[in-house]
């Protein structure tokens, strides 16, 4: 049995008077592809935002590889190795696809104002390495042909692939994917599934995925967590969850 890379314990999040996440506890196993499903308003995206540091939880804690990360600002959570994507792709529209990727790696020497001017040889050498990595990731995600066009020129599906590519650039330990399948045509979807599987197998990345296309969840995930009304309702293998009467009731609001 694999050990948990992410542990969420008793997490609560209030917005005004609304409790979006209500005493939620769950584990995500290292190296797994875990699906997070549940009816609208179950608190899935809020949970993502709490893990990624966009919100500070009202109560509870999140530990990642044994370290507490709840309440840390986003850029620090990112540096611990957790990267999230958005439901609606947020690419940098007027920057090229390649630049979108080259932005991602942390601690670039050239990101210091002084070194960008004074130590240009160092910056250039690093830039070459980062560009090589970016081209490799583009190859991996099948976006090589569009490397140099501005990201706004991509199709909806390609933008989804770009989101995945950007997360891979960060060499993350864990990726939070928010509805990777929405609006992606079947061909690109197959590529996306292949990309996620290879990233797990070759790079050892753990995935936590919010997805409504149950077909995709069944194909992709080893483990499914069902959320309802801000907490975990049940979890298990995709097939077990599918048969669970409580899950059906949660969806249909019995």
């Amino acid at each position: 049995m694999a050990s948990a890379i992410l542990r969420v314990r008793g997490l609560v999040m209030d917005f005004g008077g609304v409790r979006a996440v209500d005493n939620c506890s769950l584990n995500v196993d290292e190296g797994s592809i875990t699906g997070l499903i549940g009816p609208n308003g179950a608190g899935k995206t809020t949970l993502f935002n709490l893990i990624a540091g966009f919100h500070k939880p009202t109560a509870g804690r999140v530990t990642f590889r044994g370290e507490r990360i709840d309440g840390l600002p986003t850029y620090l959570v990112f540096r611990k190795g957790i990267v999230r994507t958005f439901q609606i792709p947020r690419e940098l529209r007027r920057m090229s696809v390649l630049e979108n990727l080259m932005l991602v790696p942390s601690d670039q020497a050239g990101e210091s104002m002084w070194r960008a001017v004074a130590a240009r040889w160092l910056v250039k050498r690093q830039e070459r390495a980062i560009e090589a990595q970016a081209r490799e990731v583009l190859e991996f995600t099948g976006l090589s042909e569009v490397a140099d066009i501005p990201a706004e020129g991509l199709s909806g599906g390609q933008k989804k692939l770009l989101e995945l590519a950007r997360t891979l650039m960060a060499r993350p330990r864990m990726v939070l994917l928010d509805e990777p399948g929405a609006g992606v045509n079947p061909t690109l979807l197959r590529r996306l599934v292949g990309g996620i599987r290879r990233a797990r197998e070759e790079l050892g990345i753990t995935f936590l995925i919010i997805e409504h296309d149950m077909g995709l969840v069944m194909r992709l995930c080893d483990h499914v967590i069902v959320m309802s009304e801000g907490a975990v309702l049940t979890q298990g293998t995709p097939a077990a969850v599918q048969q669970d009467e409580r899950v059906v009731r949660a969806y249909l609001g019995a």
Partner: protein
Amino acid sequence: MLEFLTAFAILIGIYSVFTLGLNVHWGYTGLFNIGVAGFFALGAYAASLLTIRPPSSDQVDDYLYAGDLANRLEGLPVIGALDVWFVAALMAASLVTAAVALVVGTITIRLRGDYLAIATLGIAESVRLVFLNERWLGNGSKGLYTIPRVFDGIVPAQDYDRVYLVVVLVVFAALFLGIRALVHSPWGRVLRAIREDEVTAEASGKHVFRFKLQAFVLGAVIMGIGGALYAFNLRAISPSAFTPLLGTFIIWAMLVVGGSGRLYAPIVGAFIVWGIWSGSQFLPDPLSSPNVRYFSVGVLVVLVLVYAPDGVTPLLSRVRERWTARRRLRRAVAEE
């Protein structure tokens, strides 16, 4: 005529420096600063107060000079042809503006765009009012007027403008090359990312606030250096030069006309706007009124925003492309 052109070129150079600073703020980072005049004034006064000569007896007023340091620095050796005190003055201007920008930026940068604009406008007006009212600091509305010449004693007074033009161009070139290197560096890439979508930049692990603060201070320092250059050009400054109109708006006009976020926008914009501004005096009578300038530059800005939102620079590069294409075609025809 040559004198006019020299003076014209100097001012274009100085305004290009300001616009370069504003391009760092708005063009590359998306910081909406309408208080350029504040940093302009800080740089100009810092450089002037450090280098100003004591007033001769017929000029004595009942105010205190804060500095009177030029005399002391004048004794220092000249390294090559370079005035040490001049370099010191530019550095002082940078340091003062950097310090103020750091404080102001730390407080205001988290503000939404229009709040930041109001805050910067308020700060610029406050700076101007301090220099206007605190006579012990800057001689009030009369300003400072015994600012020394660069290369004084080496270059004859009648050649000052031509020499100073070279000085301005050298300073501008150094700043321009520095900015170009920065913009094309990973640092500049992060800034462009922030300008496009702060959330994405944040989600890519960038400490957005730190980058914005750095850009704010850098742009302000460039404006401060511009202020110092301005002071040594006229060799007299007064608070009336730092009104929102002359100190801020005309620089925004230059950036908008040039095309914000484009490397060459400062030069192109400064040339066009300053050309209209100072060229209008050669027009026939009713049009040569200085008041026509305000009106025409205001209208120009609005027209550019409505009809050519990317500014004039892309139009120029399109003309250049067409020109090179035609030349290539002609050469190809000739080779056949």
